[in-house]
């Protein structure tokens, strides 16, 4: 084992990590926004709307993320071509981001739904009694309380998402793992670079989940 080439390679590994973190941040943001919309749709009294949201969630929860990533990589450019009628070069990054947002939204939806359902119904009734409409009641009363409650769960799901971003390897995007693989091959130390990558993922995930556990204890009443 010879880890000597890791330090000189840090800049290119950092480039990979930047892509991983960018993808993570955008996917978490998009996933939570879409997940919240889905959760509201699922709890709607409109049966068509709630049925559609339920089907969406069940669909994405029963197929592998890797399948979604691969499919979108091939399909997103084609779909855009149909819509706009011209060829638009969509990078692997965009198609991966779309895949992650749509896939993770199904998981975030379930967390948000549980969060909203854990707020007592009296809150919603009180908001209506004060003359608020549905939008105001959700935006000003229900969601702020629900999000405070479910922050630890949302963060935990995001740690899983952080690990799952490594799957973009399948479409050749140079994320942290792929950067480590490529660099390790060039330097002739592929084992060492892979072990290093695993260690970095471990330290970040373990550190983050320790912080989340602490947060959970502090938020618990």
């Amino acid at each position: 084992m010879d880890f000597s080439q890791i330090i000189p390679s840090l800049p290119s590994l950092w480039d990979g990590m930047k892509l991983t973190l960018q993808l993570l941040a955008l996917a978490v943001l998009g996933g939570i926004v879409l997940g919240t919309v889905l959760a509201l749709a699922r709890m709607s009294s409109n049966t068509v709307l709630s049925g559609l949201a339920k089907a969406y969630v069940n669909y994405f929860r029963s197929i592998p993320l890797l399948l979604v990533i691969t499919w979108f990589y091939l399909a997103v450019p084609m779909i855009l071509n149909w819509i706009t009628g011209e060829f638009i070069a969509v990078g692997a990054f965009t198609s991966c981001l779309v895949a992650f947002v749509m896939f993770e939204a199904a998981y975030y939806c379930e967390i948000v739904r549980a969060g909203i359902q854990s707020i007592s119904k009296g809150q919603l009734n009180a908001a209506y009694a004060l003359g608020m409409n549905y939008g105001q009641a959700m935006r000003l009363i229900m969601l702020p309380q629900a999000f405070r409650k479910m922050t630890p769960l949302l963060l935990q799901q995001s740690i899983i998402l952080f690990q799952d971003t490594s799957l973009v390897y399948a479409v050749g995007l140079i994320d942290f793992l792929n950067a480590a693989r490529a660099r390790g091959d060039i330097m002739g130390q592929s084992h060492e670079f892979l072990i290093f990558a695993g260690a970095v993922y471990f330290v970040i995930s373990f550190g983050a989940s320790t912080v989340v556990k602490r947060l959970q204890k502090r938020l618990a009443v």
Partner: protein
Amino acid sequence: MNYNWDWNIFFKSTGIGSEIYLDWFISGLGWTIAVALVAWIAALAIGSVLGVMRTLPGKVLPAIATAYVELFRNVPLLVQLFMWYFVVPDYLPEATQIWFKQELNPATSAYISVVVCLALFTAARVCEQVRTGIQALPRGQSAAALAVGFSIGQTYRYVLLPQAFRVIIPPLTSEFLNIFKNSSVASLIGLMELLAQTKQTAEFSANIFEAFTLATVIYFVLNMSLMTLMNLIEKKVRIPGMMGGAK
């Protein structure tokens, strides 16, 4: 728009031998099931041992199990797979190395790596479920068992585990489904399981949407049938009037 929809594509020849595309999907599904089932049985066995270890008195055994869980839960599955496929074989004894790398056909060595990887990865998750199941039992259960003269082994064997496993069937079901979905990473080390066959069909026939739609339907049906099966098992083993049986 210049896409030729063709839902009959699955019955057309692949151009390789006399195979039609549907044959590829069937063989892919076969590999997916072969990976997931074998890995699941191993994960269940290892995970149960670890789960019991985490609840044992003393310090050393619970600490080992905890370290295992943290290690395998915080490293991405794909990194673990690359470790088992690219790194670990190089540190095996020489005879085993030659056998693994040269004598086995590539599909078999990829298969072994994936099964080992998924078994150990999923064992960490099973461990947590088993531990939660045991800890959810009233403390009086183990105290009573020890009081009537059971050894620790007998307490787990006859009192704690039979109850704990019944309680954790639902979370175990979702881990069981996950192992099928996770087995798709095998496509990245060249095992021709369902996703790899789908990709190959999409590339050979250029009928991307049909290929991926069929794959989605297969995964969906697989999921639904496994879930139904697990629900049946849960009902079958339920003890009326006992915890979890009341629901």
